[in-house]
């Protein structure tokens, strides 16, 4: 019986191709919008999250402007921060633009950074060639540095850079290592690199002496156990308060994880909002289906009467019409899912983000269209099944 209803519904849809197509267009557009929005949003969220994570979770970024009397953190302050519970290490993040001289050639606009030992311990893959900075470099304020591939290209062009010497700020430095290229070519690492002619990293102790800096204004604090990050932030903040004599706005602590959470929430909110708007298209599509079904019931009054005279129960008539509206909307749903995935694939290519296939979105699209078919097909099907066969037969 169900198979018969299916066959009858299909033949009726086929008989009214144009009308059926226009009717399901609303569903197609609605489902397509939902699929595309969810997929693009999920892809974008995944992308941004990955970028944030590459920037580093499990670490706090401290901006310590300090007070008028005390510009930045002193060595003793750093030692106290390092000794805090749940802190696995710290690395000052100092940087400025310098000029570098190599065999009489001047290269301007080079980004010189002064980092701590923990920076290298934190990520052993940073060094592509040569050696990282080691504790003795920091104690002795060694005149050594690591350079990135951009700078190596500018200065040495093909020559092995490790072991070479160059002048920074008039002081002779030895290149001990080559930095690996960051594997994620994202906005943040581009911001860190800051363009120019590449960058080099030296021990922060050497850096402070070279440029005559007394205090550390930028600091990364690495967390051992990320589940206790909040406690560590509290401890760090009370320590920094003490360091800067409880002066307001003397420092700020940025927790990447918090930022990530906020971002996730915002993206989720955006997705819900957009899907809500797209659902309106689906609602309109549903009304279209209901309209077509009502027209169809009126047109086929005689057919319904005949079927009833031949022994069709009200229920079989209802099932047939309900089936028709479900097939229509499901058809729209499936086409919509296909188009939606296509659109989101195109969009993610355009936006240069990784396309993430979302089974949840597909299930939602198909489920929504199914629900639309049942909800908006119910009343017309009910109307058809309640037709009086005598009146229906008389209508011809």
């Amino acid at each position, binding site marked *: 019986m169900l198979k018969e209803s299916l066959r009858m519904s299909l033949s009726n849809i086929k008989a009214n191709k144009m009308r059926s197509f226009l009717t399901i267009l609303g569903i197609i557009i609605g489902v397509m919008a939902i699929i595309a929005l969810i997929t693009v949003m999920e892809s974008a969220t995944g992308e941004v999250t990955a970028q944030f994570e590459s920037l580093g979770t499990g670490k706090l970024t401290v901006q310590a402007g300090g007070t008028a009397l005390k510009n930045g953190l002193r060595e003793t302050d750093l030692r106290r921060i390092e000794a805090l519970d749940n802190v696995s290490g710290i690395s000052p993040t100092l940087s400025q633009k310098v000029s570098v001289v190599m065999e009489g050639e001047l290269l301007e606009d080079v980004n010189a950074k002064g980092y701590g030992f923990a920076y290298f311990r934190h990520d052993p893959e940073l060094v592509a060639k040569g050696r990282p900075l080691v504790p003795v470099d920091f104690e002795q304020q060694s005149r050594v540095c690591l350079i990135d591939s951009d700078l190596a290209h500018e200065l040495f062009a093909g020559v092995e850079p490790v072991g070479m010497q160059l002048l920074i700020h008039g002081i002779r430095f030895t290149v001990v290592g080559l930095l690996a290229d960051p594997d994620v070519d994202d906005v943040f690492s581009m911001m860190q690199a800051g363009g120019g002619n590449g960058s080099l990293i030296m021990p922060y102790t050497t850096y402070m002496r070279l440029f005559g800096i007394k205090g550390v204004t930028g600091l990364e604090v690495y967390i051992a156990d990320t589940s206790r990050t909040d406690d560590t932030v509290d401890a760090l903040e009370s320590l920094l308060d003490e360091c800067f004599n409880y002066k307001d706005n003397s420092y700020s602590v940025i927790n990447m994880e918090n930022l990530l959470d906020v971002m996730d929430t915002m993206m989720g909110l955006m997705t819900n909002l957009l899907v809500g708007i797209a659902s309106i298209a689906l609602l309109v599509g549903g009304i279209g289906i209901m309209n077509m079904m009502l027209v169809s019931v009126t047109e086929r009054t005689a057919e319904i009467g005949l079927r009833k*005279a*031949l*022994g069709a129960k009200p229920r079989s008539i209802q099932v047939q019409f309900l089936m028709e509206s479900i097939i229509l909307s499901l058809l729209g749903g499936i086409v919509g899912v296909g188009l939606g995935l296509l659109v989101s694939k195109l969009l993610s290519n355009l936006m240069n983000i990784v396309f993430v296939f979302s089974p949840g979105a597909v299930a939602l699209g198909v489920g929504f269209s199914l629900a639309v078919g049942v909800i908006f097909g119910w009343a017309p099907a009910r109307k058809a099944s309640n037709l009086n066969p005598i009146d229906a*037969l008389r209508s011809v």
Partner: protein
Amino acid sequence: MTMENAFFRMTGICKSYRMGDEWQPVLKNVDLTIEKGEFLSILGPSGSGKSTLMNIIGCLDTPTEGEYILHGKRVDQLDENQLSVLRNREIGFVFQSFQLLKRQDALSNVELPLIYAGMGVHKRRKRAEEMLCRVGLQDKLHHMPNQLSGGQQQRVAIARALAANPSILLADEPTGALDQKTGRQVMELFRELNDEGRTIIMITHDVSIAANASRIVRILDGELSEGVPEDA
């Protein structure tokens, strides 16, 4: 009581329709008994109540009052679903305007009542073919209704009415939309079917068509009387 054994018996059938505040009687105390194998004409002008009577005979409607027994079942007490089953099994409708589904071929049209009888696809296809052969359309199985003449369409409709092997073939002005010649051919087919033992009830306003039947009853203003009046 022989009630359970009765093939077709109507006793004191009344049907009234509500017109505003008043009840308008359409059928007044109709008694009608038909034996298996009879060919009966119900003759009456339009407005006489013959359509209402046909609807009640065809289990499309139930009487306001009275008792209707068809094949041993009390029709007047059944609900809509039970009436559907009864129509499917006991009544084969033939309409004035054929009432074929225009998007389906002859075979599918004949299969229709068998679908609602729950017959499997192969069995009902075979049965539909048999029925179309019986009415002489063995070479038109896959013709669409609009490719068939009026007479042929009515034959498809008759094949459809016979498909589920009902107790009664109920025809409402079966020649009304046909020319005289094809009308006569359809009547011939009816007589043949009656000779084979089919019970046929035919509703018409045309005395010459009614004359094909072995028995004629006349309906006027909702009242039934046996035989043809002198002035007809």
